[in-house]
Structures are given as structure tokens and as C-alpha cells.
């Protein structure tokens, strides 16, 4: 009779062993899969409930903060006091839509380590600081506000950089959205509406959208001319009304439909100040595809940007694709055809000229600080490479200054400050043109003197429409930001 009892005991033990096998499978082998399943409400609760670090601007304005729920001190609520103004930079940390922007890329610093994981407990036992870190941005709230106000209701973007460090001083994209509306469990419809909005408010146009750069690309073409020695600021060209393109019936004409100057001869500097397509088309033809593409790539085209925020790659077709299409080289040289640049890339070009030719890595996080407000780490400027020689940079700076003092960019002028710039008006098939302005100041800065580089892009005519140009639409916005930076009003 004891035999059957032993058999039953053995059977039950095997059954219990199967249970141990099952919990091993669920809790050890597959644990992460279940833990991170998006339908697991714990993921949502953990995201929504944890304390996250404070994010402030360079001038101390709080743009993201976590506050304990009055009814349950363990649950923290994230809020974004500045609403739309920092939505694209800071992003959001939500229950339903996950994290974006710095909330995603700097999550490990921003999140509290106070948890019951083995590393969390060890850290606590060893006296580590478990409180979340805070971030200080490079963004200056005053400039950010001015840029946003200047954009008004127009669709577009403003990027301002410190040319000496690469720090982003302002980055605005319009239209924007209020991340506070996406926080709750009930934010589903609000998020869907944003995603389906044809105006694409979620897109950071300043860094993630690439456009035809138009005439602002002439800075790159001029740089290639100066670097190769094919042209100099004083090089003189025949002032034609129309540039015939080899192997094509198409021609290149100036914006005015007339000659660049008096119809006889014109220098590269004057052609630059007046943004003459005929002369720069001609220069493009003289250069050929190879040096032009190489110059653009030296400025950062065709390379994924190294940044601490999401940024798209600006592109120019490879040199060998132009072999049978010289006409395309000329059109590329004036920023049309298939060249695409983000406002951030164009701001970096202006900054590179201001900085004597060195390309710096743009960044928005200046410091990571602890809960005791001591600085834990500080972002050091990183040189990505040299795009042009200091001599070329100096010559380009003077040519760009002429754009503002006596050319298409006069509306970017700030009294008492030497401002350099370049306007652009990029044709959009079937719509009003995109308006561009890139620039920097002051020209010939002393070491230690505050400097700023800027790019402004307004999509499809902005508030002006068909007649919009870089000089009339984009330059005044740049002027507002530059004037505030240099302490001038108006």
C-alpha cells in the first residue's frame, strides 16, 4: 500500500518541480519581456509616477519639473511650466506616448534611482545619491522668447548658436504644442490629434526638417571658390542677365530678372551682397561638382549630426551623380535642385565662418547638476573639424557683412554692431518660396567678446506670401534676436 503512496508523492513532487520551472521561465528568463510589455500598466505607472529631475534654462527659467502628488507623496507629476516654448527641445515624459527630446535622451540622469533593483539597493547602502539629476540648458530664455515672438504665427524655425562653443542659445520651431496636454492617462485623443495635424506641430523644424537652402548656400559655394583659389572676393565676372546652362535648355536668371549690377562687370563680393544667381551659377560651373560637394560635406552635409538632441542629416548628392549634368552643378551652387539643409546646419555654417573655420558640435545641455545643486558634469565644446581656413573665413565674413550693410540683408542690421549675413529665397513648386536668413555677429570679434550665429527659416512665404524673400521675411526675425542679444531694443 505504501508503493502507490510513494508513486503519488513522486508525481506531486514532479508537478511542483514543473511549477518551479514555470516560475523560472516567467520570472527569470522571460521577465524583461513581460516587465516591458507596453500593455503592462506597471510600465505606464512607473513612467508617470517617478520623480524626474528639474530642467532649467541658462538664465534659470524652470522648463520641466516634477512635483509630488499631494494625495500620495510617492507619486510625482511632471509639468512643463513654459508650455509650447520648449516642447521640441525638452520633449515630454508621458504615460501613454513614452519619452521624447531630452526627456528621452537624458532619461538616465533625469530619473530617480530610488528603486528596489539590486543596483538601486546597493547604491543606497553604499551611500550613493539616488535623487534625480537636473539639467541646465544652453538656451537663453530671453532669446528663445524673442525668437518665438518674432516668428509669431508663421511656420518656420530659428536656431541661434554660440559660434565659440557650439552651444545652442535659442531653438524655436513653429507651430509647437503644449506637452502638458499629453501627460495623463486620458491624453489619447489629444496625442492622436497632434499626430494627425497636417501642420505637423510635433516636428522640430529647427533640426529635424531639411529644406532647399536657396541663396544661403552661396556661402558654401563662395567658400569652395576661395578655398580652391578659383575665385576671390575681388574676382570680376561678366555681368550677364542670363546664364546658359551647358547641355540644357534651362537658364539661370537673377531674382530681379535683370543683370546683377550695371550689366558690364561685377565682383564676387558685390554679386554675393546682391545674391546674384548668374554669377554664382557661373562659379559653380567653374568649380565643378567635386569641390562644391566636398566643401558642403566639410561643413557637415551628408553626415549624421553629432548633437545631444535629435537632428536630421542635411544632404547634397554625391559628386559623381553630377558627371553628366553640369547644369545641376550650377543650380546646386545657388541652393536649388537636390541640396537640402536643416536650419541647424545653416546656423552651423554661419557659426563656422564666425569661428575662423572650425566646425563645433552643437549641444543644448550645458550642465548636469545634482539635487544639492552642485555641478556633476559640464559639456565641453567639441571641435568636429575644420571646414575652411581662417583666411577664407575672414574673407567670407567681410563678404557677408556687405550683405547687411549694403545688400539683400539690410533688415538684419543692428545699430553699433557689425552683423554679417546671407539671405535666401528657395523656390517651392506650387507654393510661395521658403525664406532664409543666416548670419552672425559681431564681425571681427575680440577674444572673449559675446558672439552669436543664427539661422531663420520661414516656410512658404510666411505672413507675406508669394512676394516673400529672405531679406523681407527672415532677416527682420534674425534682427530681433540679434538686437536682443547685443542689448539693443528694436
Amino acid at each position, binding site marked *: 500500500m*505504501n*508503493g502507490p*503512496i510513494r508513486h*503519488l508523492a513522486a508525481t506531486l*513532487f514532479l508537478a*511542483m518541480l514543473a511549477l518551479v520551472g514555470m516560475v523560472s521561465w516567467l520570472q527569470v528568463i*522571460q521577465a524583461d519581456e*513581460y516587465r516591458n510589455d507596453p500593455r503592462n*500598466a*506597471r510600465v505606464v505607472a512607473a513612467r508617470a509616477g517617478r520623480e524626474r529631475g528639474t530642467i532649467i534654462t541658462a538664465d534659470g527659467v524652470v522648463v520641466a519639473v516634477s512635483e509630488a502628488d499631494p494625495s500620495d507623496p510617492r507619486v510625482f507629476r511632471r509639468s512643463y511650466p513654459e508650455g509650447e516654448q520648449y516642447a521640441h527641445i525638452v520633449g515630454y515624459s508621458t504615460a501613454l506616448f513614452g519619452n521624447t527630446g531630452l526627456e528621452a535622451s537624458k532619461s538616465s540622469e533625469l530619473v530617480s534611482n530610488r528603486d528596489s533593483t539590486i543596483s538601486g539597493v546597493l547604491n543606497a547602502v553604499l551611500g550613493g545619491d539616488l535623487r534625480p539629476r537636473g539639467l541646465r540648458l544652453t538656451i537663453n530664455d530671453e532669446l528663445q522668447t524673442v525668437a518665438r515672438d518674432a516668428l509669431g504665427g508663421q511656420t518656420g524655425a530659428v536656431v541661434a548658436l554660440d559660434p565659440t562653443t557650439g552651444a545652442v542659445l535659442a531653438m524655436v520651431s513653429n507651430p509647437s504644442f503644449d506637452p502638458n496636454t499629453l501627460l495623463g492617462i486620458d491624453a489619447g485623443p489629444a496625442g492622436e490629434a497632434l499626430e494627425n495635424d497636417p501642420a505637423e506641430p510635433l516636428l522640430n523644424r529647427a533640426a529635424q526638417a531639411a529644406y532647399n537652402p536657396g541663396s544661403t548656400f552661396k556661402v558654401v559655394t563662395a567658400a569652395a571658390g576661395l578655398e580652391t583659389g578659383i575665385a576671390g572676393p575681388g574676382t570680376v565676372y561678366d555681368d550677364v542677365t542670363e546664364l546658359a546652362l551647358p547641355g540644357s535648355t534651362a537658364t539661370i536668371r537673377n531674382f530681379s530678372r535683370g543683370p546683377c549690377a550695371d550689366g558690364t562687370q561685377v565682383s564676387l563680393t558685390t554679386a554675393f551682397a546682391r545674391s546674384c544667381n548668374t554669377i554664382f551659377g557661373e562659379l559653380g560651373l567653374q568649380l565643378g561638382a567635386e569641390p562644391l560637394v566636398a566643401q558642403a560635406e566639410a561643413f557637415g552635409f551628408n553626415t549624421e549630426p553629432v548633437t545631444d538632441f535629435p537632428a536630421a542629416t542635411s544632404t547634397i548628392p554625391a559628386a559623381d551623380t553630377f558627371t553628366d549634368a553640369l547644369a545641376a552643378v550650377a543650380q546646386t551652387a545657388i541652393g536649388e535642385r537636390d541640396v537640402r539643409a536643416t536650419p541647424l546646419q545653416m546656423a552651423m555654417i554661419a557659426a563656422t565662418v564666425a569661428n575662423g573655420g572650425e566646425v563645433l558640435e552643437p549641444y543644448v545641455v550645458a550642465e548636469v547638476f545634482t539635487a544639492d545643486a552642485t555641478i556633476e558634469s559640464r559639456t565641453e565644446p567639441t571641435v568636429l573639424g575644420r571646414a575652411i581656413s581662417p583666411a577664407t573665413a575672414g574673407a567670407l565674413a567681410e563678404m557677408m557683412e556687405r550683405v547687411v550693410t549694403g545688400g539683400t540683408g539690410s533688415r538684419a542690421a543692428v545699430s553699433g554692431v557689425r552683423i554679417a549675413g546671407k539671405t535666401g529665397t528657395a523656390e517651392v513648386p506650387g507654393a510661395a518660396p521658403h525664406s532664409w536668413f543666416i548670419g552672425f555677429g559681431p564681425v571681427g570679434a575680440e577674444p572673449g567678446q559675446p558672439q552669436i550665429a543664427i539661422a531663420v527659416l520661414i516656410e512658404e512665404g510666411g505672413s507675406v506670401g508669394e512676394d516673400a524673400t529672405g531679406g523681407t521675411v527672415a532677416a527682420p526675425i534674425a534682427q530681433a534676436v540679434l538686437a536682443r542679444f547685443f542689448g539693443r531694443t528694436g
Partner: protein
Amino acid sequence: MTRNAEAALLIAAAVLAALGVAMVNFASGIGFDAQVALTFLVFVLSFGGVHLALRRWAPTANPYLFPIAAFLAAIGFIEVYRLDRDLAALQRWSLLVAAALAAFILFLLRDEGVAALRRYRYIFLLLAIGLLLLPLLPESWPLYGAEVFGSRLWVRVDLPFGDRTLSFQPGEVAKLLLTVFLASYLADRHLALATPRKIGRLSVPEPRQLFPVLVAAGASFLVLIYQRDLGASLLLFALFIGMMYVATARSAYLISGATLVAAGGVVAYQMFDHVQRRVFAWLHPFEDFTDTGYQIAQSLFALGSGSLTGSGLGLGRPDLIPAAATDFVFAAVGEEMGFAGSVAVITAYALLVAAGFGIALRARDVFRKFLAAGLTLVIGIQAFLIIAGVTRLLPVTGITLPFMSYGGSSLLANMVLISLLARISHGERT
């Protein structure tokens, strides 16, 4: 091991329960409060009382049984407390009553031992079937049946004072009575059942011998199937088969039993949508995530989120699992105490089963042997069925986890069960 060691282990279990309550309190920012002391007191009173009863009326009883039960009760209580403080308060009362009843059983059986129960076996059978039928009482009666989650397993009485309703699950007690009946009946007839009559080439047990068993099994089944209680049906069936096997040592019972389970499963699957839904949820818990698969999916999320060491007491979200305090308490333990807690619980059941079968092996007469084996099977099969359901090894059958799930009827029945096992082991140790 001695009674003194048992006393020390029981106090350790009381400390465990109190510490668990304190940790849950700290996690929610409360800290020490009366609940901690109250929990310690109730555990010491309950198990201390049973311990004193053992010292007096069954001093040589197996000293492992109650410490293991107390450990499981403590772990379960912590999770119930964490999920719902009101339920925990009720559970403390249940524990006191259950312990008192267990001590009372030891008192009743002090002279004759479990042998006294043999006299009443047919009364027990009738009582068991009567109890199983109770939930079918119409709702207009003072004592009435009630349907909870689609299964009609509950009996309620509206108390004359206050606005309270007393509810209990008679099935929990019925399974004990049926085990006693079976052990008793088989103890008389096992020789006859083990030497079957030959009809041609087929060996068939004497029908007259088998008849009462078949009646008991059949009646219980019909009732449970009518009440849609899958878990109890499966438990009772496995119990019948297991005890027949112990009594006759004929593996034919096991084989025919397994065949019947398979056939019954197919028939039940064809006949009942609730069976089909359970099987579908078992095979594809995420396909109908929001409806049929929700509970098992939540259980898997809880267990996975618990990972190796758990979220910590009071720091997980076991409240997301439907029925976390009752049938799915194992998932709640697995989330907050992790793989470590899960394995500890499974091990405790294995130890309890080992102690139970050990008692059966050492028992000197067949009735005690059968009864000990049967009672052990009840605990072991129940624990296995529900943990297997919660971990998706088997479809969910809906049955309480002995000693851990919230529920007075279940705690009562299982404490009595353990006290019967303890009484069997008294004086029969080798």
C-alpha cells in the same frame, strides 16, 4: 524536532507576518501602527492555541505541519493586507476561528483519534452532498445561494443584526467530508476492490463494491459541473482516482482516470463556453487581452515584473490582477517577493505534501493511511492546480490556494485538514 522547536517556528511565522505588515506600511508611508501588533497577536494566539492543544491532546504529532501552514498563512496574509486592509481584518478573524476549530477537533479526537470518524462516514457523505447542493438554494430564502464570477459556489445568510451578510463556500468543507468518507469506505473494501472479478478477459472490480464510490463521485461531479466549478470538479476527480489507486495499488485506476479526465475535458470543452473561454485564454492570453485573456495576462505581467527579487512589499501593482487576494494571490506574491518568494511558497507546499505523505507511509492501519494520503492529496492538488493556472502551465481552474488565499471557508477547512493530519501522526511515529 520537538514541540519546543515547533513553538519557535510558529513565533517566527508570527514575526514574519508582523514584519511584512510593517514593511507594507512603510512602503505606503504609514510606519508602525496597531496593525503590526494586532497581526503578531492574532498569529501568536491562533497558532499558539493550536500548539497548546497539540501539547495536551496529541503531544507526539508531527511538528512540521503547523509551522509550514503558519509560514504560508503569513505570506498570504501579508499580500492580502497589502491589497485590502478590510479583507485582512476579516482574515484575522477567520484565522482565529479556524485555529479554534482546529484545536477543538484535536480535543474531540483526543481519545479515539481519527478512527472515531469512521462511525459517521455515511452521515459525512450525505452532509457533503447536501453542502454541495446548498448554493442552489433560491435567493428568496433566508439561507440562499449566490453566484460570484459566473460560478454558483456561495451560500449567504443575511444576519438579523446590522446590515451584514455572512457568506461561505460549503464546497470547502464538503471536500474534507468526502475525503473522510472515501478513506473510511476504502479501508473496509480495499481488498475486495483490489481483487477484481474476471469477465472473460476483462478484469472488472466487483460492481457492488464500487457502487457507493461511483455514487459519491457522480453526485459530487454533477453538482459541481452544474455550478460551473471547474477547479473543485478536477480536484475531487483527482482525489477519487488517487485514493482508489492508494487503496488498490492498481495502476488501471490511474490510467482509466487519466483517460476519463481527457474525455471529460473534451466533452466539457464542447459543451460549455466558459470552458472554451478558459482554454482560449490559456493558449492565447494576449489575443483577447482586454476580455478573456485579461486576468492571466495581468498575472504574467505581475510575475515578470517581479523578476528575481520582486518589487518589494507594497511597491508593486498586484492590485491590477483580478482576484489577486483570492485565487491569484500567488501572482501577487510573485510580483512583490519575486522569483525567490515564488520558489519559497512552492517549496513550502512540497514540504507540506512530503510531511503528509510521510504520515501516510508511517500510519499503521489502512484507514489512517488512506485518510492521510487523501488529505495530503487535497492540499497538494489544490496548490498545484491554482499555481499552474496562475503561471499558465494549465488553464485557470479557479480554486483557492490553501492557507494563502483570502477566504474564511478555505482557511477553516484547511486548518481542520492539517489538524486531522496531525492527529493521525500522533503516537504513530517510528
